[in-house]
């Protein structure tokens, strides 16, 4: 595909790069412990936690497995689980 003069690119195209491949551990949300405070969604540097159909879910396409959601969860509802290769 032809480049644009000056190398200008469209915004938002990083969604084509799935950073989920980086992780070696994955957060698992225990919904029965989740109080829906939204802190996990707030502290994710990669916007990989979403509130979808009344629950919080991890976007595995982009989650890098940093563990911030698990550490910051005040209900200890998130556990980091090793990724199976």
């Amino acid at each position: 595909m032809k480049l644009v003069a000056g190398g200008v690119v469209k915004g938002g195209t990083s969604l084509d790069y799935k950073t989920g491949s980086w992780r070696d551990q994955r957060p698992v949300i225990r919904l029965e412990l989740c109080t829906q405070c939204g802190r996990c969604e707030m502290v994710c540097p990669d916007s990989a936690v979403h509130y979808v159909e009344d629950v919080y879910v991890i976007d595995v396409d982009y989650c890098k497995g940093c563990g911030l959601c698990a550490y910051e969860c005040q209900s200890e509802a998130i556990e980091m689980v090793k990724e199976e290769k």
Partner: protein
Amino acid sequence: MNEEEAQDIMEHKDLFVSGHRACQGCGMALAVRHVLKATGNDIIVVTPTGCLETFTSPGSYSPWMVPWIHHLFENGPSVASGIAAALKAQKRDSTRVLVIGGDGATFDIGFGALSGMLERGDDVLYICVDNGAYMNTGGQRSGATPTYAATTTDPPGSQSLGKIQKKKDLPAIAAAHGVPYVATASVAYIKDLQKKVKKAMSYRGARYIQIDTPCPSVWGVASDRTLEVARLGVESGLVPLFQMEDGRITGVRKLKKRLPVEEYLKTQGRFKHLFEKGKGMEEIGEIQAIADENIEKYRLLVIRGGKDGS
């Protein structure tokens, strides 16, 4: 980007989307996400060379859902001034201009340009995402590196314990330019950060916000401890959080109690040389003095019974 993905973004309302190449647990990425939530999309962002620029613009992959330009390292403020002037000339009054840059660009190489912009009062909000070193190139010392932190150009060794100078007091320097709004914030307190950005946006003219954004990779903390270490920094008094409007302090995040700086320093690899064989006791004392000075200067401790709580 296809329609489904566009819809995705609309729902999430993230103007800084997934897929960027920041390290796991990057404090800066988290801060930028929330800065943009606070500003909304009617902005133009300038980013000087650095971590943020590099991890958000590898070739044709960009997470920026706002117009964004990276020009050079030392001219973020001047490019922004030019953009602000153009918007004024074109009567595009609602669109606002931000610079979001690291400490290397802000404290050092772009310092002159920053001062010029602040002095002229150009309508630009300058946000420094401060991780205390030139992290993009591996962690070299900058004017923002805290005292006795290890960096690759100021490493501890038999003749050295890291940087001896104090962190440049850039918020005070910014305030000395007579600008309407200066604030410090931390990625540990996201709602406070968003409030400060919104407050800054309610002003016109040159404004400065400095955000403490830990870098787990180089600071030597686990990627899930970014916010924890940021909190400890604030609680120790080393990272005072305050707000100044028209030169007067109009808000301070008070500390309920004084946290000894050791509790902050010992969690990070970049200070571990201070804890080896009792070598750094005096230096830790000096760092405590810096924290104490902040606590007094900004009245960070909650006063109980007329005396500074301790």
